[in-house]
């Protein structure tokens, strides 16, 4: 045993722990909020926008950067749309003071 840990192994560590966290957190979500859960998870998975940004970044425009820009646009639709529609729904669930 020795040497450095391969990044893929570290990725697997992160992955497995995150699945565990996800499992426990999601079971606690109240069924009434399952629709907002779907829209917010949509927004969260759109964090792949960071990958799109990296793809779009190089100054010399080529096939890859164009795809990257398109991906940035698509993910941005979801980021903005996902969080905003979630907010809209959650505002409806606010307790009515009457």
């Amino acid at each position, binding site marked *: 045993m020795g040497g450095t840990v391969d*990044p*893929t192994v570290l990725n697997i560590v*992160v*992955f497995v722990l*995150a699945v565990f966290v996800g499992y426990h957190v*999601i079971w*606690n*979500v*109240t*069924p*009434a*909020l*399952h*629709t*907002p*859960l*779907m*829209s*917010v998870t*949509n*927004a969260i*998975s*759109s*964090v*792949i*926008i*960071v*990958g*799109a*940004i990296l*793809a*779009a970044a*190089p*100054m010399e425009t080529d*096939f*890859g*950067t164009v*795809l*990257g*820009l*398109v*991906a*940035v*646009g*698509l993910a*941005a*639709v979801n*980021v*903005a*749309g996902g969080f*905003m*529609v979630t*907010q809209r*729904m*959650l505002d*409806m*669930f*606010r*307790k*009515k003071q009457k």
Partner: protein
Amino acid sequence: MSANQLTLWYLAASVLFILALKGLSSPTTARRGNLFGMIGMGIAVLVTLAVVARGNVAGILLAMVIGGAVGAFVARRVEMTQMPELVAAMHSLVGMAAVLIAVAAVNNPGAFGVADPLPMGNKLELFIGTFVGAITFSGSVIAFGKLAGLGKTFRLFSSAPIVFPGQHWVNLAIGLVMIGFGVAFFLSPDENWTAFIMMTGLAFMLGVLIIIPIGGADMPVVISMLNSYSGWAAAGIGFSLNNSMLIVAGSLVGSSGAILSYIMCRAMNRSFISVILGGFGAAEGSAAGAAGEKTVKSGSAEDASFLMQNAESVVIVPGYGLAVARAQHAVKEMAQMLREKGINVRFAIHPVAGRMPGHMNVLLAEAEVPYEQVFEMEDINGEMGTTDVVLVLGANDVVNPLAYEKGSPIYGMPIIDVHKARTILVNKRSMAAGYAGLDNPLFYMDRTMMVFGDAKKVVEDIVKSLH
């Protein structure tokens, strides 16, 4: 910014995403949770922009502004009844973005700080991210079409299952060939574009083929499953870019969708496999055909209103028919008027009512029904026996007592026990069988009165006669 700093910022964003989901455990903390999610996303985007500060930031910002404006516009305009379509459309965007990023990564791994040519491990992960993304995209497009009712314009969008002989074998064959190309891509020493393109194309095709046999009422499972896939696609991309935040976010979403699929399947007492293989409800009419001789009692909205006014407790069971008729506001008005007369009005929601998890809850919340009056199936079933009047609005299979009869196709499915109530009012458009293609003995009970018509029209008529 050093790679270490960047990773720590990404860690902060990951924690905020977890808090966003944690907030959804109660309506009171959910809005704060959503704010955490937005902050997390803001951090993720800003630090990434800082990393590429010397690149084409102007172009990226422009793309973000355009995309963001479209998203904001849709989020403001969309009607709550259209939420399932919106969610399906958003899944497809995540899937497509994942595919585009993967193609860009094969094209120029250097941009991502990944070695060029791509190491084998990264290729494997890219392969997984790409095909899951591609299936998510095309599958979600089909799901969107089915949910938006575009079946008339394009047959693949038909909400009835599309089945053909040997379907599963065809899918299996395509899946295997796709994996074969993936392996070829993975084993090639350089960028094997042919294999990559073939694999991606087949994955797009497979996405279409696995969703078309699944019928309308199984959509809650499909949409949850695609939700899960979109997460795994993001996690796959995270693996290939060695980005722990993407892996965390993707895994959270992936497990969320998987758990929702499980909850939906359990609520229908069907295995995930049986839903995915599809074809359910395709054999329509076989069971419903025998209904001929039995008689139903039917009444008017005024009769229904009379019965409810003289009750002490009323339970309303909404279903997909309520969403189709957009009757949620009328229902709220009715419930409020009954409450003003001192009647205990509550709502009972079956987990698969509607076309996506939690669909009915959102519609009722939109109509400003306080969530304290809205109950989940298992919380209210025990009180059904002492309920005076139950009003079923556009639901069928989820209140079908055949679920208690051994040998029936829905045997064992948890239902809302409306048949135990003293009087049952059922609103439906016609006597047509529900999604399961089954007749519903509830309709022929002595204590049941059918009120035919569009849910919104009927409820509005009830409201009129309550005045």
